């Protein structure tokens, strides 16, 4: 049996899929156990640890201070500040999580995921005043979100989106003092505050397409065998923020509808998970 799996992995999978189960015992729509813990890293402003099955991801947010580019006095302030980004996301898929990655340069997977997350983070409407370092906003906080994969067993997209969101919810920022230009200090006597991320959650779910079967939350083996992958991300208003499909074959309309429905079903679970850990 093991030999069959090694030599003809796709045939091996098909035998299972015909009976609507997967080799690890899940049905086609089952999602692996998802756990979340926040605030375990003390050296950064906010952190989270997400585990989906064996895939584990740790996300830490480093807050730094800088002066925003000078805003034209006559120009429209709000327009410019909206385009100006305060959050920078980066994904690290290092050699520690899988032997598929090397340490010399970031893999294509990590770079594309980073771009997707950067695009997604701009959908969170966080007011600019939340990033003010002092009262007037002469200096601002800049958040560097770094996501490190610790164990790579498929469906890294979901794990990183959940990790990113819950770490951002976990961020505490402190008001500061500017002593001289370019000398910034945290004032530990002032109260800390959190970012106001409300009603703006991301609910992600990924699928792998093998032949005509759609598998939710694919593991590494399934991702390797699949002919296409779908990622759908909803926000709290049940609007689609991110929909990705990559693959060689086209995708049927009702398949996509089914996927969207499955993602909606995941909504309550993720919402509860993030809220419970951040209360």
């Amino acid at each position: 049996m093991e030999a069959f799996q090694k030599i003809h992995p796709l045939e091996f999978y098909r035998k299972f899929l015909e009976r609507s189960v997967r080799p690890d015992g899940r049905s086609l729509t089952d999602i692996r156990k998802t756990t979340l813990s926040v605030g375990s890293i003390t050296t950064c402003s906010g952190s989270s640890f997400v585990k989906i099955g064996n895939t584990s991801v740790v996300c830490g947010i480093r807050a730094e201070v800088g002066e925003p580019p000078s805003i034209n006095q006559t120009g429209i302030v709000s327009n410019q500040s909206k385009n100006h980004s305060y959050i920078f996301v980066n994904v690290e898929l290092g050699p520690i999580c899988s032997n598929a990655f090397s340490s010399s340069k970031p893999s294509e997977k990590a770079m594309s995921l980073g771009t997707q997350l950067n695009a997604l983070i701009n959908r969170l409407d966080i007011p600019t005043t939340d990033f003010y370092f002092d009262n007037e906003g002469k200096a601002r906080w800049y958040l560097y979100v770094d996501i490190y994969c610790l164990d790579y067993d498929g469906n890294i997209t979901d794990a990183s989106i959940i990790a990113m969101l819950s770490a951002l919810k976990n961020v505490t920022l402190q008001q500061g003092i500017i002593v001289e230009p370019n000398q910034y200090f945290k004032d530990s006597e002032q109260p800390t505050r959190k970012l106001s991320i409300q009603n703006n959650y991301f609910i992600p779910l990924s699928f792998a397409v093998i032949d005509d079967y759609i598998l939710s939350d694919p593991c590494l083996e399934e991702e390797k065998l699949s002919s296409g992958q779908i990622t759908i991300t909803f926000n709290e208003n049940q609007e689609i923020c991110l929909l990705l499909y990559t693959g060689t074959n086209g995708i049927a309309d009702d398949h996509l509808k089914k996927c969207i429905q499955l993602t909606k079903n995941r909504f309550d679970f993720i919402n509860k998970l993030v809220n419970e850990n951040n209360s």
Partner: protein
Amino acid sequence: MKIDYRSGNSIKTQIPLDYKEYLKRKEDKQQQQQQQQQSTQPTGAITYKRKDRLDEQFRQIFMKTGIVTQASGSCYLEIEKTKVLCSVYGPRATPKTELFETAKLNCELKYATFSSNKEKFDYLENTKEKDQSLIIYQSIIGSLRLDKYPKTVVDVYILVLNDDGDVLVSAITAASMALADAGVEMYDMVASCSAVCIKDATLINPTAQEETLTEGAGKILVSKMPSHNNITQLIQTGELNYNNVLESVNLCIDGSDKIYSIMKQNLIDSLLRQQKKDGDGNEINGITTNAADDQMEE
């Protein structure tokens, strides 16, 4: 030159310090200057007393092996707030290693960018990480039987998630545990211990605060194989007098013995856990790995 491909901020930013700390440092500096003007003798008399534990007491250690499923062996280690993850790949064949008589050991330590709230770490490997990788490499290479695996490479990757002092000790311990978990043949596991000397006190297992308390303080790191009673690495930096060196080395040797007993217990526990899991119906992993080892030996 290495180029970083990651997206970044075009604005220069910095990590802000605590205002209280800044004021205190300013005061200290002024005081020191005054004292230096009054007397010609060097001062540097910083007294420090540990509050929560004794000078030769360890912090709580937690370790667990086999948590990275993709790796041949892995270990997660926590010394209170210091958190380190290590994974080992191999012994595996690579085109580069075909010419080697023995296995080649690669060791890479990386700090996560958020692992420190004082120091900035880049995504690229900096000199500190290179230096520490080499120290870890030298500490563990003596314990491994690399001649058993010709033409292969063993990769050790270490990620520091949270730095609260004693990173090297955690990294060496985690690496040794991960290698044992991967089933790489070795003479003995390497246990390690470090100390910082502040004035007369020798602080074992220092925190990040204690490490940076004085500049140029004497630091000692000892790695040893306890069952052979061999020291694989001994590093001393900073100013220390001869008697202090001897005393701290002895303290560190005792400390590593303590760590070793914890490592041993953990390894036994993990094997028992694995055996229990295999007994529940899955095929026994132990047999297949043994067979692979036998093949390697032939």
